[in-house]
């Protein structure tokens, strides 16, 4: 681990010995920060006494850029927010536009959105878990998870031609219908995925080394999770039963049967395992959605080329792989958003890092950061 030493101050410990306090930079270009994040850590020996996340290295001003583009031109920008889960930001933005402009979405499009977003959840959780595994030295987990993720990405590639920035969900529907035989490929994937997930579960979460490394690390209480605005697997691992798909149902989610996975201890282990178990629930939803999916239009008929919603504001949110992802749009009646704000779940979850890392060792800080699953595209915006 390459750490740049910033300063050293001599301190007197409680028993009168002279000790050194270290201030070290982890990042911004460091494999364990999962992007271009930086944490300034104050260490007493190997124990973290203070951790200050420094963000903004990937700040592109997407909210400002959105004010200068038409409503349709903003969709590709939302791809660049959460770049391991582009479908979510697409969808959250499109929901806000549809609410603002009063666009009705055909039912087939809603089902397609649910299917791609649940597939995206599997891909995104694989990324999060695999990277967590690599942080703790379990590189096998990383390879297994990326194998599964690659299969989802290939499904997306055959659906919309892109592997990472899909630009698939558009205001009023989706950009194109499924190619021939695509739903069969998805069903074949969900059928074979379960065995892989079970293997990963026993390989990593059943492994003594991984358990020793993750259990009891970075414990987040349920009260803190709610008060600090944590959402998604981070909150659910702390036994906060909060999932927008169930508790503020949107789209066609009320029609599906699935469980909300909650953990009980709120440590790094639970945050990882909740993600793995959620993939089973996603598979259930995908299978039900494909069975129920009606025919018809995949995007609303008669959409104007330039959307100019009436003056007003709208907020809509969806449950992304990281938590409640919301988009707040203000319109002044023109062709462009007057103001766009993205309520980013990864941003709110990362704010917990100084609290969680306190009193742990530096190597555990890396585990905690990985378990919060930060994506800096979405945090910095």
């Amino acid at each position, binding site marked *: 681990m390459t750490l740049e030493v910033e300063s050293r101050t001599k301190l007197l410990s409680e028993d009168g010995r002279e000790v050194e306090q270290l201030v070290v930079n982890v990042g911004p270009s460091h494999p364990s920060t999962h992007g271009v994040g930086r944490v300034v850590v104050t260490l007493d020996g190997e124990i973290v006494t203070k951790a200050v996340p420094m*963000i*903004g290295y990937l*700040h592109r*001003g997407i*909210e*400002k850029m959105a004010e*200068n*583009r*038409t409503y349709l031109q903003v969709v590709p920008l939302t791809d660049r927010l959460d770049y391991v889960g582009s479908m979510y930001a697409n969808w959250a933005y499109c929901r806000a536009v549809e*609410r*603002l402009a009063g666009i009705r979405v055909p039912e087939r499009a809603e089902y397609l959105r649910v299917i791609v977003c649940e597939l995206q959840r599997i891909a995104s959780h694989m990324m999060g878990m695999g990277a967590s595994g690599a942080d703790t030295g379990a590189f096998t987990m990383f390879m297994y998870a990326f194998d599964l993720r690659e299969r989802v990405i290939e499904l997306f590639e055959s659906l919309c031609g892109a592997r990472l920035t899909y630009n698939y969900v558009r205001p009023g529907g989706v950009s194109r219908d499924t190619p021939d035989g695509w739903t069969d490929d998805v069903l074949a994937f969900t059928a074979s995925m379960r065995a892989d997930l079970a293997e990963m579960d026993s390989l990593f979460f059943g492994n003594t080394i991984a358990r020793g490394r993750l259990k009891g690390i970075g414990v987040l209480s349920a009260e*803190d999770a*709610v*008060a*600090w*605005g944590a959402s998604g697997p981070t909150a659910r691992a702390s036994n906060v039963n*909060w999932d927008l798909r169930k*508790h*503020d149902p949107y789209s066609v989610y009320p029609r599906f049967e699935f469980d909300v996975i909650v953990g009980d201890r709120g440590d790094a282990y639970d945050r990882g395992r909740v993600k793995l178990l959620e993939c089973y629930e996603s598979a259930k939803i995908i299978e039900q959605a494909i069975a129920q999916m009606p025919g018809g239009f995949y995007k609303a008929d008669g959409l104007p080329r*330039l959307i100019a919603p009436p003056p*007003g*504001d*709208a*907020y809509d*949110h969806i449950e992304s792989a990281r938590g*409640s992802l*919301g988009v*707040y749009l*203000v319109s002044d009646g023109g*062709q462009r958003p*007057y*103001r766009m*704000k993205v*309520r980013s779940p990864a*941003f*709110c979850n*990362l*704010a917990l890092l100084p609290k969680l890392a306190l009193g742990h060792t530096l190597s555990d800080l890396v585990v905690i950061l990985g378990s919060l699953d930060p994506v800096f595209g979405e945090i*910095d*915006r």
Partner: protein
Amino acid sequence: MNTEDLRIRLAELSPVLSPFFSTEFGDAVIGVGRDSLHETARELREIGFDRLGMVTAVDRDEFFVMVYRLQSRALSAALFVKAKVPRDDPRVDSLFDIWPAADWQEREVFDLLGITFDGHPDLRRIMLPDEFDGHPLRKDYDNPNVIRRPDYI
């Protein structure tokens, strides 16, 4: 809970706040002055709005509008709180002591819109470097690198 149910429930729970209740585009909104914002927030926290979902502000040229989105699991309801902030004195009370979730979100509003939060424990820029000049999400922010796109009609 829809907005009409929420209005009735709010009248029972907090008669003080119910006159400020309104419905805008299907969302429940409580509009308050910035001086009573902190008080209102505390009251709402007590009647069950345990989650501060989003903090942001909108530059309306003559003034700013602070926008807070609250959620309640107990009431299964969501609510906007909006407060006008004058442009020549952009400061408002921090809600950090009620919902710690306000910590980074208020820093973001401070950074990008230049609104000061009184009582915030660590009000620094968060996205932009400390030496950055100006607040980019303000409508009057001017920078030679910002190019306006032409209208398409």
